[in-house]
């Protein structure tokens, strides 16, 4: 197991390295010159060249990348040339927002996805099963941004209600205002994820319930409830956990949209605005950050996998 984890960690380093290099290189293919964008149209050639030199944009791309890596290894994430704020500070101040959003989203996903998946499988082909499945397909089909837009516009027009905007409220500062800000986006983001988890729980549980050991458990007179909860569910959750882990990657993409719509000062909004402003340093740092998170999540999932299902042995 240890050897396996070490090997996986080494592969993870390669993945992260390749990804960050790819994003770094892609950003420098963007036709607009960030120096011109910062200085404005009226800047002289000299000023532009000066800023390009300061930003290191006049060096070869590989050299720029190595310089950046060297800077990162000293623990300094650098200062944005566009907003003049420290990237490390920004990430630290925005991390709690995105973490709370993701935590609530995953909670909703599990809370709705797994129980409804079980109900749907246990009452297979009943009206209830069909109802839950149709709702799940709706959940997968409705665009997050549209639902979020309606959730903001309709109450605002009908009752003049809007969640606290402009400033993100901390959970400990004012729990009520904080939840008013975070629960709607988390529910919307969780809808798609829960629909996927529900479908997977259902099909996975149905698969397990056809196994011989389930028949044995029933034959020895075990209560149906125990057969499903103790024998069936535990085994059927293995793929569910995997997908839940992988979904976090997708949710990170979802935060870009949802944080922008609900004006939450999180990492998704930070990434999107940076991309819009051609703030290379921020985008490449966030891409690296996301790659690290996703790769670590995948590793965690695989380890959890072996723990949930002792038949799985890595060597």
């Amino acid at each position, binding site marked *: 197991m240890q050897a396996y984890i070490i090997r996986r960690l080494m592969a993870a380093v390669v993945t992260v390295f390749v990804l960050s290099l790819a994003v770094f290189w892609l950003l420098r293919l963007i036709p607009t010159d960030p120096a011109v964008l910062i200085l404005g149209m009226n800047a002289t050639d000299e000023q532009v060249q000066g800023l390009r030199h300061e930003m290191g944009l006049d060096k070869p791309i590989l050299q720029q990348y190595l310089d950046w890596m060297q800077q990162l290894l000293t623990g300094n994430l650098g200062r944005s040339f566009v907003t003049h704020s420290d990237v490390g500070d920004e990430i630290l101040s925005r991390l709690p927002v995105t973490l709370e959003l993701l935590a609530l989203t995953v909670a909703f996903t599990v809370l709705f996805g797994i129980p409804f998946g079980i109900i749907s499988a246990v009452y297979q082909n009943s009206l209830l099963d069909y109802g839950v499945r149709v709702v799940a397909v709706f959940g*997968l089909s409705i*665009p997050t*941004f549209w639902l979020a*837009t309606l959730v903001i*516009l309709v109450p605002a027009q009908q009752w003049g209600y809007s969640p606290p905007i402009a400033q993100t409220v901390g959970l400990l500062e004012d729990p009520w205002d904080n939840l008013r800000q975070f629960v709607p986006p988390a529910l919307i983001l969780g809808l798609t994820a829960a629909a996927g988890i529900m479908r997977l729980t259902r099909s996975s549980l149905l698969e397990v319930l056809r196994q011989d050991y389930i028949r044995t458990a029933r034959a020895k007179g075990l209560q149906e409830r125990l057969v499903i909860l103790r024998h069936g569910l535990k085994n059927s959750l293995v793929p569910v956990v995997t997908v839940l882990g992988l979904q976090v990657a997708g949710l*990170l993409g979802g935060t*870009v949209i949802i944080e922008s719509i609900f004006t939450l000062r999180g990492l998704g909004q930070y990434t999107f605005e940076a991309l819009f402003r051609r703030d290379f340093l921020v985008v490449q740092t966030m891409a690296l950050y996301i*790659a690290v998170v*996703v790769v670590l999540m*995948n590793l965690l999932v695989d380890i959890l996998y072996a723990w949930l299902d002792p038949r799985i042995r890595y060597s």
Partner: protein
Amino acid sequence: MASSDTVLIPELGAAAVPRGRGRGRRVLSLVRKQPLGVFGLAVILVLAVAGLAAPWLAPYEVNDIGAGQPLEGMSWAHPFGTDSSGRDMLSRVIYGARISLAVGFLSVIGGTAIATAIGIFSGYVGGWVDNVIQRVADTLIAFPALIFLLILVTVLGPSMRNVILVIGIGIIPGVSRVVRGAVLSEKQNQYVEAARALGASTPRILFRHLLPNVAALAIVIMTTLLGTAILAEASLSFLGLGIPPPNPSWGADVNAARNSFPIHIPWAFFPGAAISLTVLGFNFLGDALRDLFDPRLRGR
């Protein structure tokens, strides 16, 4: 693992279907077995017709700013209301079907074709080539798709062609992974061995023997991907990095409605409802096709 009611050998199963049955009855039995799939197909057909016949169906020109007063509500003259420049929303939604379906089909067909070629090649050749391709795919799958698309489209610039290109590229890693898996299991079959024993060349085995056998899988994946691709286009356009205005992209129209004041709900509602319905159609159809093509999943 075939359940008791399915025939073990698929060829026999197909032959066992009574041939004398009328077409009408066959359609009826399909409706009874896969009502949601048939509903999905119907939705898609209606949208396709709407998109193709948009110039004749739409009551107004897409960008006719004199179609009505700004921000009109729902009425007989403008069933979906108007936007802030007085453009008829029903017409824009009808024309929008063109953009959504064109982006969906072109990106998915292009992406799947390349992905299938890569997947078959990677799975059949194996060895270090397979390893390198799979590691690259790993890397791309790990990264959040939306952020990847946003970066790519920022590099290329927002336009219809680039949106199709970018979504097509985004599809490749995941699909090639699935196709490769299918090829790996198909490769074990005796017909491949038989073909090789008869002296068939590698390209012949790949395209004449393996491709038809993974085609069913590819069709199922493509159907679901069409929904995903349409959602991706809508999301990119909503974020202002997709189809540029004044084109009637559903996603871009929702964004325009969101940013305008005073709030006008119909303007935001109908384009989004059109996206939902389209994606719903593809998802229902995809589920039904999977049930039909994959006997193992039947009755589940």
